[in-house]
């Protein structure tokens, strides 16, 4: 029995530290904003040009000039700022953003990530993902452990076209928390009700399993 997508977001929210500037990708990462621990202050950056992004607007207050990178209507919080796209990526490439949380199609055991293209299918583009993964020092991937066909997304090597090399630090899935180490995937936590063997079976890359694997808390 695996955990739900919102629980993945809740678990990732525990990685947030006071004072962090955070960029959230589309999908599960967006949900992380809902679970910021009350005792800390973080600011969310959206690469289309806002720092201090707030929640979705209440009905009737939608503003066409105020959207996130997923083109959804948003609000700005007190202390927010707007800027152009070059400034936005200066924040990203210049390592001023502390944490990047994004989705992935595949991650390899050395931290390579693929998340922008499936050959032979429609290619939608990389958006800001390549800029984010090329520079961020703290990248957490939020994704399902296996794809829709049941194949593992944690691989010895990525099969799909790459987005970036050796950049992912941690992966949180519905089954486990896994770190990327020089020796391979390292099992940090298992989800409630998920056995170590289930995680092992769902991980195609080399998985290091320590003697004691704590249960995921969220």
């Amino acid at each position, binding site marked *: 029995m695996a955990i739900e997508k919102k629980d993945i977001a809740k678990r990732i929210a525990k990685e947030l530290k006071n004072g962090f500037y955070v960029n959230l990708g589309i999908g599960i990462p967006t949900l992380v904003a809902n679970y910021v621990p009350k005792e800390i202050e973080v600011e969310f950056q959206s690469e289309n040009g806002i720092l201090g992004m707030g929640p979705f607007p209440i009905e009737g207050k939608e503003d066409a000039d105020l959207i996130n990178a997923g083109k959804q*209507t948003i609000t700005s919080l007190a202390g927010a700022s707007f800027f152009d796209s*070059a400034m936005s990526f200066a924040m990203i*490439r210049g390592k001023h953003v502390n944490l990047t949380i994004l989705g992935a199609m595949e991650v390899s055991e050395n931290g390579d990530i693929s998340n922008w293209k499936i050959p032979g299918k429609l290619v939608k*583009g990389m*958006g800001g993902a390549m800029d984010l993964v090329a520079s961020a020092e703290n990248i957490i991937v939020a994704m399902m452990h296996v794809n829709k066909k049941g194949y593992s997304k944690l691989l010895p090597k990525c099969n799909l076209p*790459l987005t970036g*090399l050796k950049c992912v630090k941690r992966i949180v899935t519905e089954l486990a928390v896994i770190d990327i180490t020089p020796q391979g995937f390292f099992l940090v936590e298992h989800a409630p009700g998920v056995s170590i063997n289930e995680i092992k079976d769902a991980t195609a890359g080399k998985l290091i399993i320590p003697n004691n694997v704590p249960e995921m808390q969220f």
Partner: protein
Amino acid sequence: MVNKTVKSVTKALDGINSGMTLMFGGFGLCGIPENSILELVRLGVSDLRCISNNAGVDNFGLGLLLQQKQIKTMIASYVGENAEFERQMLSGELEVILTPQGTIAEKCRAAQAGIPAFFTPAGFGTEVAEGKEIRLFHGKNYIMEEAYQADFAFVKAWKGDETGNLIFRGTARNFNPLMCGAAKITVAEVEELLPVGALDPNQVHIPGILVNRIFQGSGYEKRIEQRTIRNI
């Protein structure tokens, strides 16, 4: 003060020809130069090479130019919201150059600033780097990217004055300021065109020197792609 105003969108687009390279500000449908795009549709110029972060939706924004098959090459970072785009790309009618978003921004800024090329880490080790010069700086690999060379830049601002000073609003700013002065001719359309002196110089985002023609836009739809509200 140098007066940059033109009376109509038709005058603003004087000199446009088929086969030109055009820049368009905007992120999704947010902050796009709606009036200039509609005029390009009316003029029917074709074989355009378009630089824009996105390609509009089927019946709005650059999607309107795609419908009329006016675009030959599209340079963008994300093109996910457009079925006609997908059809033309898969059939090979449309050439698509997908480029990382931060790289597009910097290629515009470099063109604006007279910098012919720069090095970025984005895309190293991926197909984006194929055929490009790679350099090692402080132990990390970077790709050389060149500044864009464009004929016209079309931008949209919130307020502007007759000498071309511009102020943007919210996230409608995005690529618009970076494209000003990044092409041979920059055309700015604004929601509110004001007399010289009406804008506080402290608040100006783009100085008029980077704008060649400015006009009062009309009939802005400012469509929202993903209307999302809070449940309370």
